[in-house]
């Protein structure tokens, strides 16, 4: 009883499946308790509207305020989605503005199931630089699905990122992209649909993996006791 209290008070939970201690709603997918959760990280240049996406995701609001003030103290939010009658949770991570002047740090990428690569449709530079971000993601978040998200769909500009650009880019990165979307955080266009679609893609991918793995699972009780192995080793080594 008192132990349970300690665990709750600390916010750390014991994850029996992976034998780890982690924060409640921790960053990695847990199969033992509750809905499957997928970690999505936001990537892309400073000023392309990552925090605006984050706000839309978190509480469907929009703020014109520039800079960090709009998301102070917050860099994680979770939402539930229905995928084929099942509940799926997405946890979205914001960068906290660290990319403005420096590298964001490997710890941001750990255990990410997906990366949402953001650019501004009105600013080709923010688009052409994305190949660098892909490299960072592949290096630091192995196995993460990569999605593309063009923001500022509501704005008119002369030199917009067009479909041909996106097609070229997709081909250049050897088809590593799992989806491409265009949204407007200002009027909210397509933001919800995008996350719902991501939830669907991620959950389907995971379900595939799970069925594959089932054949490999060793039933508890069938495995030989570890202690026996230890004993044998001790005898031979001493």
């Amino acid at each position, binding site marked *: 009883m008192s132990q349970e209290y300690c665990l709750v008070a600390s916010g750390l939970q014991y994850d029996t499946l992976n034998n780890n201690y982690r924060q409640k709603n921790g960053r990695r997918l847990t199969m033992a308790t509750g809905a499957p959760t997928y970690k999505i990280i936001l990537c892309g240049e400073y000023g392309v509207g990552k925090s605006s996406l984050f706000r839309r995701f978190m509480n469907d609001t929009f703020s014109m305020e520039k800079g960090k003030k709009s998301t102070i103290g917050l860099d994680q939010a979770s939402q539930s989605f229905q995928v084929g009658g099942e509940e799926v949770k997405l946890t979205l991570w914001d960068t906290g503005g660290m990319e403005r002047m420096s590298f964001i740090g490997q710890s941001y990428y750990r255990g990410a199931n997906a990366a949402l690569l953001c650019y501004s449709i009105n600013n080709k530079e923010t688009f052409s630089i994305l190949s660098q971000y892909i490299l960072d993601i592949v290096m630091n978040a192995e196995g993460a699905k990569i999605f593309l998200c063009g923001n500022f769909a509501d704005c008119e500009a002369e030199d917009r990122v067009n479909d041909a650009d996106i097609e070229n880019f997709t081909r250049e990165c050897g088809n590593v992209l799992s989806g491409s979307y265009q949204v407007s955080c200002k009027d909210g266009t397509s933001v919800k649909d995008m996350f719902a679609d991501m939830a669907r893609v991620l959950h389907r991918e995971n379900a595939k993996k799970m069925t594959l793995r089932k054949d490999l699972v060793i039933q508890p009780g069938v495995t030989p006791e570890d202690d026996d192995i230890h004993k044998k080793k001790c005898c031979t*080594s001493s």
Partner: protein
Amino acid sequence: MDEEYDIIVLGTGLTECVLSGLMSVGGRKVLHMDRNKYYGGESASLTPLDEVYKLYKMGDKAPEHLGRGRDWNVDLIPKFIMARGKLVKLLIHTGVTRYLEFKSIEGSYVYKGQKDAIYKVPSDEKEALSTSLMGIFEKRRFRNLVVFIHGFDKNDPRTWKELDPQKTTTKEMFEKFGVDANTQDIAGHALALYRNEDYKNASMVEFIERVKLYFESLTFFRDSKSPYLYPLYGLGELPQGFARLSAIYGGTYMLDKEGCNIVYDDDGKVIGVESGGEVAKCKQVICDPSYAADKTKKTGQVIRALCILNHPVANTKDALSTQIIIPQNQVNRRHDIYVSVVSYTHQIASKGFYLAICSTTVETDNPEKELEPAIRLLGSIEQKFITIKDMYEPVENSEKSGVFISKSYDATSHFETTCDDVLDIYAKVMGEPFDFKKDERLEQQQQQDEM
């Protein structure tokens, strides 16, 4: 860069990052810079493995048989986290736990010179009764001591067993319970985690509090066999977590900055920090000793041997993580030797590999030889990297200039002294001690207001 800040923090080691986070949360405008292009300074975990070979000038590439380089996150300083210690309090208080995952260390071992062997430090009553660490009669005496420590309350004379907490030294307390020299070594070095023998002549209260912290940490999580936690992907995750905290509360981060020279006015007060010809203004600076060499003094040296193994350490029941303490008396030294072992299950090595780090405070002209008792326990070693580091601390009154300098990471096996340093600097910079309860009280107040 040419903006004005309340505080500029130099170096992204754990101490600096925790302080940066606390300052930003406390509403200060913080600029945080580092000469390196990675976070963590001395407390970084290097990745990929090639970086370790480069750092130790052993070529550009790690040998292929060590597996994929990116699977490695190699700590440069060996430390574990006490489950009920100050760092966990800070992690929980700030919410930085949400960025991290931990595993508990599987066992703590202590070396006994007489038998030239390591023994598990008992983690529960069952282990205590069956341990071959001490004889039957000694076990009884040790048990009495432990029962006394558990029951001790410095405000309740009935629990004192006629030992005056104000006057009694730890040595006198040992004498009262009649425990022998070996048991004293175990209690003082493997439970209270003292590094040398000074504690015996100090008050028993501190000793008792340290042993209590050990046992509380041990029982914090169910089934844990040691009081220690370790973050997946290496210790370098800790400074990064606190740096994120600072950033989301408005802190600005700049890595890979050349120079980072502290600029003073004619009275020797800090006015800013120069990098690449530009000066960022500030009222105060917090930095590690390497950024303010003129205001620090050398306090000694620590030697560390990073050893890559492809097997667990013998006689640890094939544990995937352990701590081994070699109390100084057992090998005729003045400082303990520590060995910390973590492995691929902590995401710090590629499959099948272990990283053992041996460390101690240097006492002789041949420091490498001093580590021999520890190295011997490891068995065959794939690769060994040796560092000997000078330790620094600020000279007296350096903070009068508005520059607050942290201490180098010492040879202790956990972060308690690092946290003491953090809290000490916090109090000096903010003019009041850090209050762990403050947020809780604010929350309660708000709840009451709402009702």
